[in-house]
């Protein structure tokens, strides 16, 4: 069973995403409301999460900065990270591609296919 960490400053989005993945794929979900909190939860999780959903726009520390901090932590650097962004159009995607993310997911996401989208981007065959 997969363990996913969701980092997003919006409580409702964390709840809905968690419910979606639990209900449609039966995955175990951890959540955090900020970059710093997310790093702490990921580091303390045993085993570490199989993947991280990371919101881009967060106050204090944004998604890309959080990702960079994670890369500096040996235990966390190998966890695949998917960005969650509401900016569907624009050049942001090109910026992210070079940074080492496993993929980008767009908000608003379809709650019925979110798990499948994640699995597809990470090359997971079964949930």
């Amino acid at each position, binding site marked *: 069973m997969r363990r996913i960490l969701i980092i997003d400053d*919006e409580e*409702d*989005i964390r*709840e*809905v*995403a968690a*419910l*979606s993945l639990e*209900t*449609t794929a039966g995955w175990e979900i951890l959540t955090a409301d900020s970059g710093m909190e997310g790093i702490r939860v990921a580091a303390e999780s045993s085993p570490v999460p199989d993947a991280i959903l990371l919101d881009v*726009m967060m106050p204090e520390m944004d998604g890309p900065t959080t990702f960079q901090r994670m890369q500096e932590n040996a235990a966390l650097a190998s966890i695949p990270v998917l960005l969650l962004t*509401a*900016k*569907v*159009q*624009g050049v942001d995607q090109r910026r992210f591609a070079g940074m080492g993310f496993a993929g980008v997911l767009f*908000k*608003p*996401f*379809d*709650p*019925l296919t979110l798990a499948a989208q994640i699995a597809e981007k990470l090359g997971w065959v079964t949930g």
Partner: protein
Amino acid sequence: MFIGLLLTCVFLLGILALRLAAAGRKHQRAVTDLDDALKRSREDAERQRMRMAKQSDIDRMKTEFVSTVSHELRTPLTSIRGALGLLSSGLMGKMDDKSQNLLRIASSNTERLIRLINDILDLERMESGAAPALLRRCSLFDLARESVEAMNAVAEAANIRLTLHCFAAQDAVYFSADADRMLQVMTNLLSNAIKFSPAGSIVSVQINADAESVYLKVIDRGRGVPADKLESIFNRFQQVESTDSSKKGGTGLGLAICRSIVLQHGGAIWAQVNQSEGQTVAGTTFCVQFARCARASDAVRSNVSLEQCGQGVILICDDDAELRTVVGELLRQNGYEIVEAGSGEEVIALAQEQAMRNAPVPPISAILLDLYLPGLSGLETLRQLKSSAVTEAIPVVVVSVSAPSERLLRSGEAQGWVQKPFDESLLLAELRRALESGPDEQASQRPIRASRLTV
């Protein structure tokens, strides 16, 4: 007698000196006048640059505003879509029919709202130029085939059959386009055709071409757009019947986006009522037309403007880096590639290098040359270009604050002239003319017509 001679010489010398002084003053005035004219021209050019910069500032702020707003709207919509999607799927538990129906309504309208936000942002970015098209040579037939394949599932679900026919030779349907945008147009047109077609009918896609253009037609046999609405349906938020938005799930922006993309490509889009043997029959045909792309190997020069085919590499020479950037951007948006040079020496070097095998510079199609250059003057640069066998054949369009020189145009040293401050379309037209007529035509056979903005 000797004294007389001496006095005469002194007298003549005096006259000469006075004449020289007068000529000197006249010369001085002419130089001052030229100086003033040059300064005025430079000020005009500067004002035009500032006007253009201000307009693009406003456009950028508008696009940023629309972008920020749509981003903000998407955040609460994420929670709404998530919650409603899960509830209406039945995964959270069965509900009575009435409640289930309410959830279905809420969920489907959330989807519609999301599509609307995407379309609005799309349209705004395209129309403000924030999303420049990436042009390359495309086959209209290949693109049509791709979009038909993509829409097959949707068509099947609606019990509609999609057909595709190409009535021209497959290598004759090339045009300059941004492939992703074209697919967006075709998907939109097909989606509309399927939506408004009765079950069991056929939606036909036809490709055609003539000497100058390529054509795409999407033909449906549905209830048809009334003749008086054939133009207005391309406007924003226009639906033929007011219930169409909710029943058909459209955003009302699909055709406006199609039109925006087509116009961005210099093409045309229109709708016509279906006719068979002079009689109006069911359905509507949506037509799209683009200029055909001439192939590099075509021996016959076509009327198609080369600028749309992305086959020209233009060398821009001006010591003003900002102007090079502005002109470069204009040319890129019209399908050209750009090489920049800041001095006459650079131009000569680049122009000569490009003729070499394994050249670091691609073959240059034309040169835009400013006359007022540091170091080697524009005129001297021009002379050197035209006296070297390697570079003499490259058409040169002079872009300068000076008025056109008939002498240079007649002698064939310059193939075109644009006076600053210039109108963008005039520059493009002059460049196109220089490229199309080619350097081998006698300059004296063409009427002298240089382009400038009349102020």
